[in-house]
């Protein structure tokens, strides 16, 4: 369970977001500049809220009243940025093992191999990121993040840097993986096609959640023109 209640002013943006995720996938949709990326940075801990509280499975990650602000490296969140941010100087296996420091080498190797294979990229372990396709990079980045047994998953525009074919293919795969992992997962996207990934959609505009619900619920009563545009049937 990921509980979010944060406020942060940054430039023009006055962000106030209340959102709670169980073991489900929530798509945070919204126009550019709505505060989606800021929300991710607040959750990651690279930006601090002015006020509010973030808790994960009952453990407080941030609380301005109690003066708690857990460091990025201790939040146990998996984060996949838009470009997947694989370390270009490390091969795929070393990328996958990066988050397992502190474990015995055998264990690191075993866990990294297991996740790379599970995501279908076990054969790439000696390759370097600059030589991989966009889809391969995404799989490696997911394997790297999940090998750590994170408590929640944050994805920023997961398909934005893929070509249309890879995008469709990976969207189907990711939907299956998300169902099987049963982690609280938050996907930031402006692409309506990503709605199929989510159990629920939260629409953010100008720093506020203006509406949330399933795709069908949003279709029945759209709260804004962005929402009605976002949920319109394309099939």
């Amino acid at each position, binding site marked *: 369970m990921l509980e979010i209640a944060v406020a942060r002013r940054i430039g023009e943006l006055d962000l106030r977001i209340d959102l709670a995720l169980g073991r489900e996938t929530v798509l945070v949709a919204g126009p550019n500049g709505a505060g989606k990326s800021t929300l991710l940075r607040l959750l*990651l*801990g*690279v930006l601090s809220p002015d006020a509010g509280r973030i808790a994960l499975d009952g453990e407080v990650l941030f609380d301005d009243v109690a003066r708690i602000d857990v*460091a*990025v*490296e*201790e*939040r*146990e*969140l*998996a*984060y996949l*940025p838009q*470009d997947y*941010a694989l*370390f*270009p*100087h490390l091969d795929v296996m070393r990328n996958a093992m*990066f*988050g397992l*420091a*502190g474990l015995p080498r055998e264990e690191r190797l075993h866990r990294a191999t297991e996740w790379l294979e599970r995501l279908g990229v076990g054969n790439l372990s000696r390759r370097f990121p600059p030589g991989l396709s966009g889809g391969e990079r995404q799989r490696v980045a997911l394997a*790297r*993040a999940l090998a*750590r047994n994170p408590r929640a998953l944050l994805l920023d525009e997961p398909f934005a840097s893929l070509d249309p074919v890879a995008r469709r293919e990976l969207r189907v795969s990711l939907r299956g993986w998300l169902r099987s992992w049963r982690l609280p997962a938050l996907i930031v996207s402006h692409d309506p096609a990503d709605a199929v990934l989510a159990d629920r959609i939260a629409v953010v505009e100008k720093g506020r959640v203006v509406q949330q619900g399933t795709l069908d619920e949003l279709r029945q009563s759209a709260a804004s023109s962005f929402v009605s545009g976002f949920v319109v049937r394309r099939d």
Partner: protein
Amino acid sequence: MKPRAAGAWEAAQLLATVSLGLFLLLPVVALFATLSWSDFLGGLRDPLLAPALRLSLVTTTCSLAIVVVLGSLLAWRVARNPGRLSRWLEAVSQIPAVIPPAVAGVGLLLAFGRRGLFGAFLDRHGIALAFTTPAVVLAEAFVSAPFFVQAAIASFRRVDQNLLVVAGTLGASPFRTFLRVGLPLAAPGLVAGAAMSWARAVGEFGATILFAGNLTGRTQTMPLAVYTAMESDLRAAQALSIILVVAAFVLLFILRRVAPGAELPGSELRGA
């Protein structure tokens, strides 16, 4: 442009290129062309050479170590924390590159000399720096630091911020992120910066002679030995100079191999 004007423009470029190119090349050529093998070998036997060479190697190794370790940490901080303090630190780290080396020597003396700002404090604790080998190291570190720091800041700024955030989410502490992600990705630029900084330290003359003196075996580095040899034997000075030039060429050659993409002399570093 009219054909005649275009022709004049072409000619001006050609003239400038040839004359400046020759002007820059001629002194180096002269060093080699005007010395016979036997004079060169004779110069190598000059009693000034061995102690000066040894001292230059030892002191520039020390100054380089100081500059690289402290400079990397400062540069990382400046590159990662944009803000007024960082801009100020960046400007401060460039001061030695723009003030004349002789002025740096006077400043070092007034700061670390026996009655200097900080030197008086050291003196009370029985530590004298001026006119010692450590003073040579300080003078070299002072004048060469900007070259490394500037290159390091630029290289660290080029490291993708996302990689550092992701390293954090993968459990890496800020120090481990620096060590495993920041340093390796900035390495080519750091190596180039270190080489330029080392070259500047090897050539350091003005600050050294004022702050450390010119004592054979203790503070007389290669450039000072060249200066001293000039007074008695031009051939010896020339032989010592050739050693320095060859060392510089070897360094440049290795750099182009090790860090082919890195910025080399002149692109972002000001000569002193």
